[in-house]
């Protein structure tokens, strides 16, 4: 009987340890605090500048919701890390080497390698999602689950979805919205409303004009500005609703 009691205590301690490990690890995540004025909105010209914005905000281990027609996760590896050299093998912090290879196509991959981002949910325009789904599924790294593509880029978890299938995400998130997301037929106000509904705790919204992308048109950039206005409007409306709830 005494042995069972001791073992039960060990089991309880084990689960307490797991809980502690979970809390400690997730407590390391660093984002700007929640404010009553809504998310911090940052406008940048390119996906490359998005990385600089993340660094300025001192992000660490965050989840990103990324609205674009691209993943911006092209793999990049610094040259030389895997080449035989005479002893002693020199080692150094590899993160600056990753940053040296930063461009608009790999900004999120680099942000993961340097520890700013731990997980990315990519929201593709419906048309792009439909076009690319088969290609994703040809890759063993992705599987279809609940109409969403679940996969990895090395140890970076990726969820690829249409906006309508975006799951509700309760944790604080960073949202990137690229002008390229607003392909013909995409409604900026509707997108903002869905995003606010599914992601109630957006801490930073980075709006990317993608001025280095030739196929991003002025109409798309205008749609991005409309999205920004709608997002702010939604926030005011949501703030009002929360206030009313409190008063009631």
């Amino acid at each position, binding site marked *: 009987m005494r*042995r*069972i009691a001791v*073992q039960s205590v*060990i*089991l309880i301690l*084990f689960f307490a*340890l*797991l809980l502690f*490990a*979970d809390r*400690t*690890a*997730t407590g*390391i*995540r660093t984002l700007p605090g929640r404010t009553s004025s809504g998310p911090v909105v940052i406008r940048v010209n390119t996906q490359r500048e998005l990385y600089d914005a993340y660094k300025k905000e001192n992000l*660490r*281990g*965050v989840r990103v919701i990324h609205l674009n027609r691209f993943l911006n996760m092209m793999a990049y*590896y610094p040259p030389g*890390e*895997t*080449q*035989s*050299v*005479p*002893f*002693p*093998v*020199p*080692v*150094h*912090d*590899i*993160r600056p080497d990753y940053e040296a290879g930063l461009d608009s196509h790999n900004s999120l991959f680099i942000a993961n*390698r340097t*520890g700013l981002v*731990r*997980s990315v949910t990519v929201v593709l325009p419906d048309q792009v999602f439909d076009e690319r789904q088969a290609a994703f599924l040809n890759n*063993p*790294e992705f599987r279809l689950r609940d109409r969403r593509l679940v996969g*990895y880029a*090395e*140890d970076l*978890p990726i969820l690829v979805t249409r906006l309508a299938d975006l799951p509700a995400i309760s944790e604080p998130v960073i949202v990137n919205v690229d002008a390229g997301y607003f392909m013909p037929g995409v409604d900026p106000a509707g997108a903002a409303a869905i995003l606010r509904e599914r992601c109630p705790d957006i801490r930073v919204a980075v709006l990317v004009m993608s001025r280095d992308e030739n196929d991003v048109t002025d109409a798309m950039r205008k749609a991005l500005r409309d999205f920004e206005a709608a997002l702010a409007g939604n926030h005011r409306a949501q703030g009002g609703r929360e206030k009313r709830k409190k008063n009631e």
Partner: protein
Amino acid sequence: MNKRFLPERHAVLWGLFLVAFALRGYGLSAQPATDDEAAAASAAANYLESGLFGRVMWYHPPLRNFIVFLSAHVFGGYSAWGLRFGSVLFGSLTVPALGYLAYRLFRQAEIAYLAAFFLCIDPLHISLSRQAFQETTTAFFLVAGVLAAYHGIRKDSIAWCALSGALFGLSTASKWHGLFPWMVSAAAYFAAPWLIDKHPGERRLFVRALNMLIVFVVVPAVMYLAAYIPWLARGYSLREFLDLQNWLVIRQYHHKASGYAETFLPKGAYWWFLRPTAWADYVFLRGKSYVNIAMGNFLIWVLTLPALALALRRWYAERSFARGYVIALFLASYLPLVLTKRGIWAFNALSVIPFAFLLSSAATASLRESGTITRRQVVLYFAAAIAVSALLYPASTMQTLDYAYLQPLADVYSPH
């Protein structure tokens, strides 16, 4: 039957350790770092600093990074010894550990010496002990885990079984090969009161299961999780940790090695004990080419399947727990590698050959005892096995191209 392991027998096993260490450490600084080893140095430093998986074999559990990092700190940098000391040490320690395990199982010094000796001179094991990888670490922890488990099962000692669980956790945190002997040992622990005559263990199923849960699930899980602390410190939750493990299982299943390994190197585990097999590395540094051919000593490896047949026959006749345990360990470690569809290269054999050598040494001793083979034949066989290992030693230490007689081997395994 020898009941006690006498002091001179410890001396033999630790003497074999010294021989193993010498074979694994000799001329280590002259052996250039492979591309993967250079990447392992960077991976170790960056994993411990920022939780970033490195470029090389990042999909394996990350204990290697700790071992390489600690070793480099002991030796003041990523010199040849700084980078590889962990592999050399754990590789060499596996030799006496296997000897002690053999003795614990079969209570015969001869079997202990044979098993330790087989591993001591195995060129594949020597070669991989001289590189900064997880193979020898995995093998050491799993052999030590089985040793502690068997002791714990026999004595029904929770403390020994908990130690075993910790060692299996460390083995699996090096490479998933540790899972197989871990599972066999957990099952053996659970079933021991019903399998071993007069076993003092608890027979109430719930209590037995609770014991097993603590020592063979909780303890190893803590060790395994601990190896991921730097990764978790990047902000990942335990749920994300479990998702990652799930993804790694899928990734391992679909794993493809380099085109060179996929095309030129033998990649079926079913060949290991039927014909010579090898893993090869190539380095070009400062204008010189180096080829490493890590090949098992086939004279020893070829004994495995006949020894398995003999062991099965004897187990069927006598139902010995120890023999059954060894057979189960061998089959559980080997069959998954045989049955998988993806390529399995020779370096993976390090987690299987300790059990193969236990079977072979037990069979050799048994045949000698029964008079089927004479001591003289065993000595001659030993001499031949030593000669094969000696001839292959330059190939296992990256000097293949320096010896003309190894050129045909280089042509087969490394057609660069």
